[in-house]
């Protein structure tokens, strides 16, 4: 079974192909807002590198958020189109799960933190369990100060990852909190393929039109509307 993974939730855009044998090929770029420009050529490149025809793909995985709205839609729209054309199922994985996944051997609590812009971050907590990580909180949006307050209330050490953790590192400057920078700043398409593979083995997939994006924030107009209506 071959899985094509498309990841575009943050400033980085990535694509990977893999399956039982692990990740066969991947490509990531993070040079400015060029998700749509870079993603389609990357898919072709990764297929060539993996020596795979697109028609050999049996499942398309996408990062469905939370993250940059426009970036997310580029990846999800591309993924839905490919799955629709190939008539294969899809798997959606959260950007926060993807960020936490590479830290599964850290033996500490992990908090995945994605920059939500406008002074806010998306986050979720994970705890180490045999064979991986388990998410212990629902993905949420709030200020870095709100997250810092939650960290303060938690016993033991926490490892933070993601571009939100890096951007607001000064707010989380505590002895029992560490921020993993560098490689762990963006969710990767390699993690996506690996996590999607585990889901695919359980046939935990959906049809393209059933994919739902995890925005966690309403469009401004709707927020203004409900404020005005007193709802």
């Amino acid at each position, binding site marked *: 079974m071959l899985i094509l993974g498309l990841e575009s939730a943050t400033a980085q855009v990535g694509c990977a192909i893999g399956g039982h044998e692990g990740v066969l090929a991947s490509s990531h770029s993070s040079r*400015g807002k*060029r*998700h*749509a*420009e*870079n*993603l*389609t*050529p990357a*898919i*072709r490149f990764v297929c060539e590198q993996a020596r795979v025809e*697109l*028609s050999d793909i049996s499942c398309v995985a996408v990062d469905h958020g939370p993250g940059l*709205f*426009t970036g997310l*839609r*580029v*990846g*999800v*729209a*591309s*993924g*839905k*189109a*490919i799955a*629709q*054309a*190939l008539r294969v199922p899809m798997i959606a994985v959260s950007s926060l799960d993807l960020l936490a996944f590479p830290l599964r051997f850290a033996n500490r609590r992990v908090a995945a933190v994605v920059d939500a812009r406008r002074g806010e971050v998306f986050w979720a907590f994970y705890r180490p369990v045999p064979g991986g990580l388990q998410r212990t909180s629902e993905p949420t949006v709030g200020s870095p100060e709100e997250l810092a307050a939650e960290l303060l209330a938690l016993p033991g050490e926490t490892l933070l990852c993601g571009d939100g953790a890096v951007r607001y590192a000064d707010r989380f400057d505590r002895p029992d909190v560490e921020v993993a920078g560098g490689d762990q700043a963006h969710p990767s398409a390699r993690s996506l393929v690996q996590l999607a593979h585990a889901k695919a083995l359980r046939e935990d997939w959906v049809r*393209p*039109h059933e994919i739902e*994006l995890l*925005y966690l924030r309403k*469009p*401004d*107009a*709707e927020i203004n*509307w409900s404020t005005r209506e007193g709802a």
Partner: protein
Amino acid sequence: MILPPAPTSTTPVAVDAHTKILGIETSCDETAAAVVVGGSVVRSSVVSSQVDIHARFGGVVPEIASRAHVDLLTPVIAEALVESGLDGPDLDAVAATYGPGLVGSLLVGVSTAKALALVWDVPFVAVNHLEAHLYAALLEDPSLELPLVVLLVSGGHTMLVAMEHHGRYRLLGSTLDDAAGEAFDKVARYLGLGYPGGPAIDRIAMEGDPDAIAFPRAMQNDGLDFSFSGLKTAVINHVRKHPEASTADVAASFQEAVVDVLVTKARRAARQIGAKGLVLGGGVAANSQLRERFLSACVEDGVHGFLPSRDMCTDNAAMVASAAWYRLGADGPSGLDCGADPNLRLPLLTD
């Protein structure tokens, strides 16, 4: 160095009467897909309008539009393919509007079209939305001969374009401030007629007297450019001074002023370049009064006038697929590194 988002054209691809193109349109608040054969035979054209979603906000909300496109596009494409009786691999190209429009919305269509082209191993064609509107008329009446003058009037644009050859246009005139459709929306909102403003004013104007109030006709005797912001202000001032004025009369008189200017300038443009045909395009072209006055002017002037059907005037994907047929034959496919260009202009000839 930042590369421009413009599509990289390669060599022309031979197109003929059997070339089947899937077109995708997501530049504003319509999610549309269509299959057109040979540039003019519409095998299917599906449009899913988001008007109801945006109505309570009194205008298109970009983030809401983008969210709707990503949910609606897959089923809309599926329906267009089923209606056309064709399957993906039967197609010869996939086209999408890449500008002008709302960038988040455009990117959904462009990303989808590029991915489909990649899977089906066919060319991708990036289409200019304005150029697609110019082709809407040719799509329905292939007997139209060039040169043509197209009066393109929508919520975002008001322009007179000379179409001398395929892919070569000359801008004869355009609005200096508000687009005509924008004026309709703003006046409708002021009069409390709701959104979208065009159809609302069209409806209530039927019960009013178009000569009740003499609103200004800006620049009517002067060149081919337009200006509608003064008219909008004049309507607001009139209603403030005469709160008892009948809304139907105000709407009818306002509409009459817009139509007067549009028709006068379109005739002048056609005379000026010796056009063989005069056609109407864009969302405002669905206005009943404009359609009526436009056609009688063409008959009077002895020009081949053509009114696209209302479905073809508003945003749709058949016109995108049709324009793509001409583009593919003239310039070839676009690169898969194509992005969206929200401020894209018509490719104009300069003297």
